[in-house]
């Protein structure tokens, strides 16, 4: 099944691996494959409507994993399972395992606040708090008692803004409202806010869909840098974006995970017909 022309030396397509649930069909052996989140037999219902069906996926540390698929395929729902944001929706029922650091995140002993401390999130529309730029970053670390002294707090704010590539643009106006920034800057502020609490995983729900192409490129570069420190899971409607930023790509369709593959393989030589049809633009 490996196409001679498209296969690349470092990518190991292994039917054995593929048969193991949750593994990508092909793996780039040069990449980091330490497990970050292990999902097994995950099912989710909104009332009587099943939105996720038997999802098995291994998400690797310090990689960018992109979730793609047509609207309503469950990719955002899946993303929100990882930090239990679905708890906020009353009619949701979840079955299956979402394991992180050896613990099931849905077990009753797991405090969702502790989980969200380790799994940050960036939303589709930039949603900075209606507070100052400084306060947007400092609020969560202070709340989690990560900093107590004012100097530490200042340093942490600078660190987070630098990591988010925003420091040079805002260092002179830290006390101005976060919403006074442009859309792209606001989104980077939200990223800075997420990384300020030093999470392990950052979830991004279509982080660039409300942004112009230049801001989008900035965010994509940022994701590439951030993956050295964090595991990033991103939902995107833009397949070029997935191809550009992601190490692994998962294709969802009607609540099912159809194909999970190395990004280059996914876009050059998809393993399933549905993924191929979607990627080549036959539907979606």
């Amino acid at each position, binding site marked *: 099944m490996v196409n001679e022309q498209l296969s690349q030396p470092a990518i190991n397509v292994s039917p054995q691996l593929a048969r193991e649930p949750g593994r990508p069909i092909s793996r780039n052996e040069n990449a980091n494959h330490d497990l970050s989140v292990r999902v097994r037999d995950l099912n989710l219902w909104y009332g009587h409507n099943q939105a996720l069906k038997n999802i098995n996926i291994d998400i690797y540390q310090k990689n960018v994993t992109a979730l793609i698929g047509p609207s309503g395929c469950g990719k955002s729902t899946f993303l929100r399972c990882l930090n239990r944001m679905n708890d906020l929706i009353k009619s949701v029922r979840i079955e299956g395992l979402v394991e992180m650091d050896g613990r099931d995140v849905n077990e009753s002993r797991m405090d969702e*606040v502790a989980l*969200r401390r380790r799994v940050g*999130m960036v*939303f589709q*529309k930039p*949603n900075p*708090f209606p507070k100052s730029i400084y306060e947007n970053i400092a609020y*969560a670390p202070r709340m989690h008692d990560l900093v107590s002294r004012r100097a530490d707090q200042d340093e942490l704010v600078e660190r987070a803004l630098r990591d988010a590539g925003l420091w040079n643009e805002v260092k002179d106006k830290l006390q101005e409202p*976060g919403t006074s920034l442009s859309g792209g800057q606001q989104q980077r502020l939200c990223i800075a806010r997420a990384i300020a609490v030093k999470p392990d995983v950052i979830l991004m729900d279509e982080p660039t869909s409300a942004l112009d192409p230049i801001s989008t490129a900035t965010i994509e570069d940022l994701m590439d840098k951030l993956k050295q420190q964090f595991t990033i899971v991103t939902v995107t409607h833009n397949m070029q974006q997935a191809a550009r930023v992601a190490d692994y790509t998962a294709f969802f369709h009607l609540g099912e995970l159809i194909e999970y593959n190395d990004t280059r393989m996914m876009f050059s030589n998809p393993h399933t017909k549905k993924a191929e049809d979607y990627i080549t633009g036959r539907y979606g």
Partner: protein
Amino acid sequence: MSQSFDEITAQLKRRHRKSARLKWLSMGALILAAAFLVVFITDMLIKGLPAFQQAQIKVEVSYSEQASEIPLAALEEDVRSLVSRGFLRLIPGRMEDNPQLLGTSPMQWVLADAQVDQYLKGHHSSLGASERATVERLAEQGRAELMFNTFFFTNGDSKLPEYAGIAAAALGTVLTMIVTMLASFPVGVMTAIYLEEFAPDNRLTQIIEININNLAAVPSILFGLLGLAIYINFFGVPRSSPLVGGLTLALGTLPVIIIATRTALRSVPDSIRQAAFAVGCSRWQVVKDHVLPLSLPGILTGSIIGLAQAMGETAPLIIVGMVAFIPDISASFTDAATVMPAQIFTWASEPDRAFVEKTAGGILVLLAVLITLNASAVWLRKKFERRW
């Protein structure tokens, strides 16, 4: 073949006429409402402004031995019936407090009887012909004048119109409103927060919600009955006191505050809550640090409007005994008191014509307080509104 511009324009004429008609109709409604308001305010001003002036006359008061026994003896015979009995009553007490007055007979301005006041203001007066002549003579000599009526703002109620004032009622209103606010604001806001941010969406919550919405439409006199049954008969709160009045009015204010707070909470965009949850806020932190600061202007505005509504309430207070004759000013939550609308109600039912202007004057004071309250609501909204 598509239509030409002329054909389309011809069809549009009818539609344009219709929208013009609607515009004039709605403007007419506005003008009518404005006209009513102007007539009402003008009438109140014409009737009420004279209440802020009261007739005084300059007479010789002889503080003799006899006057300390029979106050009328202090005055010359022709002006005896023109001076307020309220002044005469005070003479013995004043002489006791200031013994040096004995034997002196200064000329001084004293409060005139209400009939003199009405006569000078050109209203109907029950003064006899000789009394009228005396008043005319005094006026010619510059010894009878309309002066600013300080009594209206410093006295409690009185059966003598010239002595009746709004101070006791105003203080009663302040005390009652303090109780109302302390009772209804925290309970109302916390209830709204629970219903909006914490409550599960089940049958019980829905029933509670429907009942709260209905509560806002319950005739206020029923709250008075409830106050009578629970606070006075069951808990033994003193009757007629600002405490029981305030607690009773709080029943009526509560649904207003709950509904206003819920609306304000609901207007906070969900994206803010999501952002807060995503950085690891607990539910209470989301509310306290993010939702409440954003909804504060709305909550304050709603609460102040609820308070203003309570301030104009009379019916429930009749039931708990706050519509009463209160001549003394008492700054106590448990003493008998009255409130401004109740005072207006009492004056309006007085047969003496001199009370008509008191009634209108009381309304003016009440209106001024209400406008101040509403203006402060606007100011608070502006102050706390975040423009980002």
